[in-house]
């Protein structure tokens, strides 16, 4: 299951809408081992394409160095599909190289880039195998167990979509 802060969830959707019809991409880093996506890093799609995304190689190196320095993992790796469903393509599966990450796909097809709901789905992609997982959007991580870190900037802790 992916547990993600609402502000970050919404920022990913905003990014996808902004870059439509090109695919948008980025990561959400979090403290190593925490499985908690905390730091949203929108990336430039160097391919600038409606059907392909790729981080610029220099940006990629800087990002990984930064995560190393901060002792972070790429907890979420996300991108958008702008004319197809929010499901990993063959290309996505072939190129997935972070077995520990939640691969988030959002779809801005059918006018979703302008209004209406945007599909936001999450997957594990390990050794070519795709498994979809539940997404739980929370208002801050304060009440979410299982991490030693206490760094949520969000105060509101009610109105969580699901519990237990």
């Amino acid at each position, binding site marked *: 299951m992916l547990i993600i802060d609402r502000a970050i969830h919404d920022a990913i959707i905003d990014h996808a809408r902004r870059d439509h019809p090109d695919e948008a991409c980025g990561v959400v880093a979090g403290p190593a081992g925490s499985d908690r996506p905390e730091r949203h890093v929108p990336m430039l799609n160097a391919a600038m394409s409606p059907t*392909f995304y790729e981080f610029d190689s220099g940006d990629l*190196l800087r990002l990984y160095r930064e995560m190393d320095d901060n002792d972070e993992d790429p907890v979420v790796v996300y991108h958008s599909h702008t004319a197809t469903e929010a499901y990993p393509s063959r290309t*996505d599966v072939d190129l997935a190289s972070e077995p520990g990450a939640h691969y988030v796909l959002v779809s801005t097809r059918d006018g979703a880039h302008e209004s209406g709901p945007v599909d936001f789905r999450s997957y594990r992609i390990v050794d070519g195998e795709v498994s979809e997982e539940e997404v739980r959007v929370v208002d801050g991580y304060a009440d979410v167990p299982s991490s030693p870190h206490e760094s949520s900037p969000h105060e509101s802790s009610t109105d969580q979509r699901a519990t237990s």
Partner: protein
Amino acid sequence: MAIEVRIPTILRTYTGGERAVESSGDTVAELVESLESAHPGIKERMVEDGAVRRFVNVYVNDEDIRFTGGLETELSDGDTVVILPAVAGGSAVRGAARRPA
């Protein structure tokens, strides 16, 4: 001559989980051979048809070797080599997404 090589998560199965290993070589091509001797299987994940794989990035002291001579890029004692798989994908089938460099 010692070169530090940073290994990405996906290739750590070849290095017994190590995030960085020490290796040697006067060029990246030689370094890849040294890595292969110590960590069999790793070369095939990095190199294809005599060049670095399209979706693998290799940096020598922060320079992507695509811009410095590819596998023939020269190395010196104390250099740092970073290997990172591309973060890429998309709705296109991969053949169609390829473009000339």
